[in-house]
């Protein structure tokens, strides 16, 4: 066996080994709280020694957790609907209107700003500006902060779906057949990008629901979110906190699978239309 064959075999083996180890590690850290949520005593074995449903019961009985759940659902719901609407309009602009290259470059860069500026910087800035104003004590301050951080996710998702279904051709066909701008938007674009919209909305919901970094700074006292509740309960009772984490995990898992499913569905629909 020559040296290069040997290197090739070793590289392949090492990459497979890394793959197995990394996936196992991610699985482990992702789902440990799922087991923890049903544990009463878990010290010396691979699975808990004493199982219980008390942690789940705690979830529905503790007033702070219930209030935080309500706050998170409210804030994530508003954020997802708002952001998807806003970025859908931007996508419409990019595909429907004759536009200069400058404007589209500007939009593409502006959407990525939340990736350039750390969440903590934006949160701090929003905190400094809006804390003393009328939105300071309401949940709108957190919604406004979340509207900025979800933008790359929502925009990227919508943009790729719009590109995939070849929106430009659809629009040109519709316009050349005599449909107006609004008819085109409502009757041609909306039904085609529908799956992308739902996907983007779910993604925005999950990002907003799982955010701790901005909520920790900005959430007003009555609207402390689920992640803040996790943080506050963890060092009191890890298994109770695991039950709250379970909620976040359920939201994330459902979202990531639905987003993958919906984007596949969007492609399938497009292929059907083309045929």
């Amino acid at each position, binding site marked *: 066996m020559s040296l290069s064959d040997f290197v090739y075999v070793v590289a392949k083996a090492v990459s497979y080994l890394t793959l197995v180890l990394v996936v196992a590690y991610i699985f482990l850290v992702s789902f440990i709280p799922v087991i923890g949520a049903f544990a009463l005593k878990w010290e010396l074995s691979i699975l808990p020694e004493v199982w219980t449903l008390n942690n789940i019961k705690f979830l529905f009985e503790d007033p702070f957790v219930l209030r935080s759940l309500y706050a998170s659902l409210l804030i994530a719901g508003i954020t997802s609907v708002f952001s998807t609407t806003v970025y859908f309009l931007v996508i419409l602009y990019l595909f429907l*209107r004759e536009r200069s290259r400058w404007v589209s470059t500007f939009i593409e860069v502006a959407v990525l700003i939340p990736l350039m500026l750390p969440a903590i*910087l934006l949160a*701090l800035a929003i905190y400094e500006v809006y804390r003393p104003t009328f939105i300071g004590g309401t949940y709108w301050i957190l919604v406004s902060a979340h509207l900025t951080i979800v933008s790359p996710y929502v925009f990227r998702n919508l943009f790729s779906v719009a590109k995939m279904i070849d929106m430009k051709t659809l629009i040109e066909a519709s316009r050349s057949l005599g449909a107006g701008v609004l008819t085109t938007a409502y009757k041609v674009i909306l039904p085609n990008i529908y799956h992308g919209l739902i996907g983007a909305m779910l993604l925005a919901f999950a990002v907003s629901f799982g955010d701790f970094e901005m909520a920790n*700074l900005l959430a007003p006292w009555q609207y402390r979110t689920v*992640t803040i509740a996790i943080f506050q309960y963890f060092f009191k009772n890890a298994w109770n906190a695991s039950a709250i984490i379970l909620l976040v995990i359920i939201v994330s898992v459902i979202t990531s*699978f639905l987003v993958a499913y919906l984007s596949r569905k969007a492609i399938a629909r497009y292929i059907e239309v083309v045929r």
Partner: protein
Amino acid sequence: MVNPYIKSFLLDTLLLLPFMLILVFFIFIPFSVSLYYSLSDQSGSSLTLGNFIRIYSDRSYLNAIRNSIVISLESAVLSTLFGSLLAYAFTFLSPTVRDIIRSVLLLPIIYPGLVIAFSLVILFGSSGVVTSMLLKYFGVYLPGIFDVRSYNGLILAYQSFLVGFTSITLSGVFLSLDRSIIEASRSLGADVFQTIFRVVLPIVAPGLIAAFIQAFIIAISGYGTALALVGGGGNLITLRIIMLISDVEYQPHLASALAMNIAIITIPLALVYNRLLKKVVGGVV
């Protein structure tokens, strides 16, 4: 009949106005105010570099900046390494298996970093499951060797979601890498190292740098994981910012100046990243 130019202008405005409002009111204005805060002191009378001078002459702040940069560099190097190994392994797998693994890798990306930190504490913390089992059956006290609630534990926690980002960014690069180029290089007599350094590396380099920058930015700007794992006493820029706007010590001007230090690092990197992204197929965000 309305003038078509006015109509078109109104339509443009209608479509872009909400986005512009978000941009101006929740990014530009707050950022400018924060920049102004960082350049002024508590009295707010005149512009000064006092906050920055205070940071750069204070040993503990300098340490915080150094710690943040070192930890993020280490996390980014490790995750780029693992990510490229994973992306390389992806090229041998069938698309179905690849999709399944990819969705597993995507999971921790949507998770709050908090959850990962707590999972690690449950497993490897001083009274964690793995720790107590090791102690009982093997007599090994894990925190003596590897303390999860330290900067090293933080790097381990970061890997769980950074590898997702880097491997998915890099899998596009590795999958589009044409095998015939490598075969051509080898049939022309290049040995394996020449093939790697002269042929493969120049092609994947933009992807590697993009993945590295992405991982670095995410690592340096997050604080949820660090707060949960290392605790508020950890000396990282982000944790110091949080301390500076807590009830104990309220100094928003100094906090803004510290936050600007992160921005000075991340903004140029993000611009480079944005450039590179056009050459790289795929990617998460």
